C-alpha cells in the first residue's frame, strides 16, 4: 500500500513539475518586457469576468459574474450581474457603489486594503505591477500561459495574501486571469473573457447616478 502511495506521489510531483516550470532569468526578462510593452499600449479595456471565491469554511465556491471596464489612467468599473446586481466604480481616490437602492460614494482611504488591491489591479492592467518593489516576483511557464507569481513583501499585503498569481496569454501577452490566495489558502480567481482593447469606453461608465 505504501509503495502505491509513493508511486502516486511521485507521478503527481512529476506532473506538477512538468506543468509548471520556473523561467530562467533571461526568459523571465524577455517575458516581462513583452508583457510590459503590451500593457503600456492599453488605453482602455472592456471584458466580461467570472469571479470564483473559494472559502474553506463554506467548502464551496461563490461564483460572481459581470463586466469589467478600464480607462487610462485610473478609471475602473466592475459591474456585477450575478448573483447580485451592483456596480463599483473607482475613479482616482473615489469609490462609488450602486446597488438596486442607491449610489454610495466613499473616499478610498475609508478602506485601505481596497485601495491597495485596486492599485495592484490598475498596475496589473497597465503592466507596472511587474516593476513593483512590494512583491517578490517569479515567472513560470504553465501550459499555454505564463504565470507571474507575486509574493508580498509589504507587511499589510503579506497579512492578507500568501501570493497573487497573474496569468498571461503566451502569444498575445494579455492578462487572462489572476488568482489572489489568502494566508489561510482561501482564494479568489478572476477570469477575463471577451476582451476588447483600445475601444471607446464612454466616460459616463465611470460616473454613477
Amino acid at each position, binding site marked *: 500500500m505504501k509503495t502505491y502511495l509513493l508511486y502516486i506521489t511521485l507521478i503527481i510531483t512529476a506532473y506538477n513539475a512538468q506543468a509548471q516550470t520556473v523561467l530562467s532569468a533571461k526568459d523571465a526578462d524577455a517575458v516581462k518586457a513583452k508583457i510590459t510593452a503590451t500593457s503600456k499600449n492599453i488605453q482602455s479595456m472592456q471584458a466580461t469576468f467570472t469571479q470564483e471565491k473559494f472559502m474553506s469554511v463554506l467548502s464551496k465556491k461563490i461564483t460572481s459574474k459581470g463586466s469589467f471596464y478600464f480607462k487610462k489612467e485610473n478609471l475602473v468599473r466592475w459591474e456585477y450581474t450575478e448573483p*447580485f446586481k*451592483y456596480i463599483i466604480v473607482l475613479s482616482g481616490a473615489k469609490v462609488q457603489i450602486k446597488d438596486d437602492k442607491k449610489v454610495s460614494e466613499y473616499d478610498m482611504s475609508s478602506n485601505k*486594503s481596497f485601495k491597495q488591491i485596486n492599485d495592484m489591479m490598475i498596475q496589473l492592467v497597465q503592466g507596472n505591477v511587474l516593476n513593483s518593489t512590494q512583491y517578490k516576483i517569479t515567472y513560470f511557464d504553465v501550459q499555454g500561459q505564463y504565470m507571474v507569481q507575486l509574493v508580498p513583501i509589504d507587511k499589510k499585503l503579506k497579512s492578507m495574501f500568501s501570493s497573487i498569481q497573474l496569468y498571461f496569454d503566451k502569444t498575445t501577452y494579455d492578462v487572462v486571469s489572476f488568482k489572489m490566495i489568502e494566508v489561510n489558502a482561501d482564494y479568489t480567481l478572476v477570469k477575463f473573457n471577451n476582451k476588447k482593447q483600445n475601444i471607446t469606453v464612454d466616460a459616463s461608465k465611470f460616473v454613477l447616478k
Partner: protein
Amino acid sequence: MLHRSIVLIFTILLFSSLKAQQKIPYLFSKNDSVYTFHALLDAYNYHFSGIMAIKKIDQEHRIVFTTETGTTLFDFSVKGNKCSINYVQSDMKNPLMLQLIKKDLCDLVQSYRSKKGFEKNYLESAEHKQIQSNNMSASQNIVQNDIYSVEVVKSSKKVKTLFYTIRSNTITSEMDIRITHHTIPVTIDLMGFVATE
C-alpha cells in the same frame, strides 16, 4: 350589532397578527446550507462592501464576510451564546467598530436559532429576552406590505432598528435586512438573501 363589531375587530386583529407571524421566515436553520447576501457595512468613517455568507454546521454558525476585492474581512463563529472571532483583517481592528458589528451579526444569527422567534410570538422570543436582559425593550411592527421592523429602545430612546424586507414567502426567498443604529453612525445592509444547499 355590538357582537358583530367585536367579531369583526377580533378577525382583523387575528389576520394582521397571523400575517406578521407567517411572513418572517425562520432563517439560517438548515445544516450545511450556505446563506449569502450582498453586504454593505458603514461604521464611523469606514466602509466595506462584498458578500457575506452564513453557514450552519451542526450547532455552530459561521459568519464570513469577503470583500469584492477577494479578501476575507472577518470570520465569526456563533455557538450557543458564545460569539468568537476566528479571523479579522487589520482594517477592521477598530475595537469599538469590530465589537459592534460582531454583536449585531451574532445577535441576528442567534435570534433565529430557536423557532420561538417571529414565528410564534416575538415577545417570547430569544431575541426579545436578550434585549430585555440588557435593560432595553423592543417592538415588532409592520412598516408596510412585506416590510417589517424591530425597534430596540433604551430609556425611551431608539437604539437600533432592524428592517426586514421580504420579497417572497418561502424560506429560500430573497430578503433584505438592514440594521440601523440611531445613537452611533453604524449601518449594516444585507441584500438579496439567497440560500443554497
